[in-house]
Each structure stands twice: as structure tokens, then as C-alpha cells.
């Protein structure tokens, strides 16, 4: 259970903490993981998100999040127009995703000059979410704490490099999870930290052999 401000709060645009506020957060976290506003976003809605999403503004909230709006942003109802104005192309469709939580969204983000990114996340109520898939690899994080996400080649020594870089920057690791698609394939490290990870430490990590992508989500 969270704090008293999960009971009294959040301040949000209605009508549903799971279907609207949670959806906006999914879009927002997706954008942060991508590192910029996508030029093109393909959104799939599953289960209850697909069935009642329209009436709950789930579609508009997801696009709003991708545009960088927070769950209490009054422009959420008009996000389709804002996307048009800012030149973000998007499509939204229903899709049956096997064994997914009823409030699941899948988002593919594209922009020129960067690799496309695919994320799957679901809304657990009260405006809180979980990211459960990143570029085809199972993960599990909420984005509520400072979170460092590293995509690397699955080989010995990569975890050590991350631990050393964080230690050198005097960053304390709160939790750490590692995931991979297959032995020797691609892996993802999800590291929750007590402090903000500075840009310099991230650049240092990104320059290492075998480390493909480093992203940081500040607690929000």
C-alpha cells in the first residue's frame, strides 16, 4: 500500500484512475523510455481498455502521455488535436493480447534516426501502472522510483560495470532486476536507485562494449 496521497489523490483528469490517469501515465513512461516525443505511435488496447476505453478517454489519455502530459493535464481531452498540431502521427486499435492484464496497452514508438521501441504496460488502479514488456523482453517496474534501464548483450561482466559506474557516482541501488530473452541474447537491467543518476554516468555506461541503450526515469 502507498501513502495517504494514494488514498486522497491523485489530482487527475477524470473519469477513471485506472482507465484515464493510469493510461496517461503509461504514455508518459513510454515517452520517457523512448527518450523523446515519437514521430509515429501505434497503440493497441487489450481487454477492458479496448472494451470501455473510448468512454473512459483511455485513447486520449495514452496519446496525451506520449505528448508529455501528466494525468492532471487539462489538455488530455484534446490530446488528438495537440498531436496533430505537434505533428505526432498515431493510430489506435483493439488487440487481443494473450494472458495480459485486462487494462493493458501496447505502444510502438518510432522516430527518424533512432531504433523503434515497443513497450507493453498495464494499469493497476489508483493511477499506478506496471511496465511488463520492453522490446520483447519481460520486465516488471512501475516508474514510481528513480529507475535506470539498461539494454545490453547477455554476457559476463555487464552487471559489474553498471554496479561500478553507480558506485563511482555515489548512487545507492535500492532494487535490481535482470531479464533476458535467451542465453547469450539481449538482456535488460532494471535498477531502482535512491538518487538521480547523472548524465555523465549514463554516457560512460553507454560507451561500454555490450551496452546498447541506457535510459533513466526520474521518480514521479
Amino acid at each position, binding site marked *: *500500500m502507498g*501513502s*495517504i*496521497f494514494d*488514498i*486522497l*489523490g*491523485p*489530482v*487527475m*483528469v*477524470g*473519469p*477513471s*484512475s485506472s482507465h*484515464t*490517469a493510469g493510461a496517461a501515465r503509461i504514455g508518459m513512461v513510454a515517452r520517457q523510455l523512448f527518450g523523446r516525443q515519437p514521430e509515429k505511435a501505434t497503440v493497441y488496447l487489450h481487454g*477492458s481498455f479496448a*472494451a*470501455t476505453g*473510448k*468512454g*473512459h*478517454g483511455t485513447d*486520449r489519455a495514452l496519446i496525451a502521455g506520449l505528448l508529455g502530459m501528466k494525468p*492532471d493535464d*487539462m489538455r*488530455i*481531452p484534446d490530446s488528438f488535436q495537440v498531436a496533430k498540431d505537434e505533428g505526432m502521427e498515431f493510430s489506435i486499435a483493439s488487440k487481443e493480447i494473450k494472458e495480459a492484464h485486462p487494462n493493458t496497452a501496447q505502444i510502438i514508438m518510432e522516430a527518424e534516426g533512432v531504433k523503434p521501441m515497443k513497450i507493453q504496460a498495464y494499469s493497476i*488502479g*489508483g*493511477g499506478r501502472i506496471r511496465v511488463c514488456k520492453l522490446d520483447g523482453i519481460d520486465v516488471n517496474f512501475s516508474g514510481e522510483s528513480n529507475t535506470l534501464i539498461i539494454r545490453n548483450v547477455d554476457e559476463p561482466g555487464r552487471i559489474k560495470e553498471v554496479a561500478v559506474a553507480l558506485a563511482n557516482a555515489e548512487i545507492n541501488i535500492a532494487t535490481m532486476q535482470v531479464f533476458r530473452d535467451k542465453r547469450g541474447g539481449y538482456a535488460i537491467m532494471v535498477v531502482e536507485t535512491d538518487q538521480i543518476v547523472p548524465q555523465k554516468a549514463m554516457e560512460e555506461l553507454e560507451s561500454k562494449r555490450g551496452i546498447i541503450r541506457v535510459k533513466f526515469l526520474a521518480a514521479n
Partner: protein
Amino acid sequence: MSYQSMEEAQIRCEREGIQFWKAIQLEDADERGVTQEDSWKEMQRMWQAMLDGLDAYDPELMSRSRMVGKEGGLMDAYREAGDTLCGDFMAKVMSNALKMGCNNACMKRIVAAPTAGACGVMPAVLVTYYREYHVPEEKMIEALYVAAGIGQIIANRAYLAGASGGCQAEIGSGSGMAAAAICHVKGGDTVKLGNACAMALKNLMGLVCDPVGGLVEVPCVKRNVGGAFNAIAAADMALAGIESQIPVDQVIDAMKEVGDKMDVSLRETGFGGVAGSTRAAEIVERMNM
């Protein structure tokens, strides 16, 4: 670690000679590692959002399903004509509950308290009283701590989501929280707060969650009125010295048991209750056209 029972919070209040709201604030500051002042500021932000939310109501706006939106305006006009059954103050409570419920359905800004569907109960009770009787703002923020503390105990022992425990967990909890909060504003002590909350919860026990088309609109918007009225009645009973024969912690446990036994069609699935009526099916068909 937040309070697991009202009894636990009451013991702390007695031991340290503090009021219930203070016990909640101290716990929040401790748990989140912030100062009491920062905790207070955050609560003030919630209060301000409730005030702003009510002022932002627009009677011209309709929800995307077109089921709700104008109810707050209709109630205002009726009240202004001066011939209500329940008197001016309660008519204002009613209209404020409707306004917040409509705001939520129309994608305006609200404070989930404890949920978005029940967002009208607390402001209807607290903001209406604040504006009618010009109570100092500090007292209202203390009252929000009372409400949040009660809500947290309910969350720890039972639940706050309609999908888990039916509407008794949403409007019911909101009503219990508001009853204790307004009881505090009127000078009720910790025992009276507990009685007010227990009576409000008992009155709404078993309430099902049956939204038409799965949308937070029908019957949710009008149920906020029920929750607000019930809260005020329960607080007045407690202030009159009427006691709940069942202690609040045991009432919450009973609510959990009732929720667990509730059929899934009555827990926010949009199948049972009024959501299963012929008219609901017609409305859903019209929306899908």
C-alpha cells in the same frame, strides 16, 4: 507502517495526547521521509484542487456517452428557486456532489477521494460546509488528514476499489471518510470520528458496483449524493452522542467479508445490477453505433 486499525491510531492519540489528524500527519511525514510542513502543503494542494474543481463545473458540458453532465446545473437552478424538500444547505451539498461527479465524467480535473468514481462525496460535504460557515482553512486540511487516515485503514483491512469490493468500497468508503472528517470539523473527538465512520459504512454496506456500459457515470454520479447525505447524517448522529454498537474496525472487516462474497457481476464488470437492465443494453448499443 501505516495504521492497521482505528484502535491502533486511537491508542497512539491517547498515549501522546494528540488529535487523530495529527497522528495521521506524523505517520505520513515519517513514512515518506518528508517534513510535517511538506506533508501539510501536499494536503493543502488536494484541498485547493477540490475548491478549484467545483468552481470549474460547466453545466453545458456532457460526457462522451451523453448520459450525464447537466445535473449540477439543474440542481442549482432548483435550489435557487427556494423550494427544496431538504433545505438550502443540503441542496448545496447535493448540487456539489453532482458537479464533481459530472466533472469527472466530462474529463475535467478532480481529486480521487478515495477513487475517481467517488470524487464528489468529500468536496460535497467539506467544501459546502467551509463556504457556508466560513471555517478556517486549517480546520479543513486537518479534516482531510482525518479522511485520508480512515481511508488508509479501510485500504489496509478491506479495499477501496469497486472491482474488488463493490461500490460499498468506493462511495461507501468515501462516505465513511467524509463522515469522520466533518465530525472533526464540528469538534468531535477520536471516539466520535470512529462512530461517525462506522455508522456511515454500515448504512452503505452491500452496495454493488454496477456501472452502465462500464463507464463511471450511471449510477455513479448520483450515488455521490447518497454518499454525501449519508456522511452528514452519520456525523450528526455521532455528534448527538449516538454510538455504533459495532466498533469501526469490525465494521470494516464485515465490509471486506461482504465484498468477498459479492458476485463478480456486481463488481465493476458492467453486467449486474442496473448495468444489466434492458435500458442499459439499449444505451450500450446506441453508444457502439
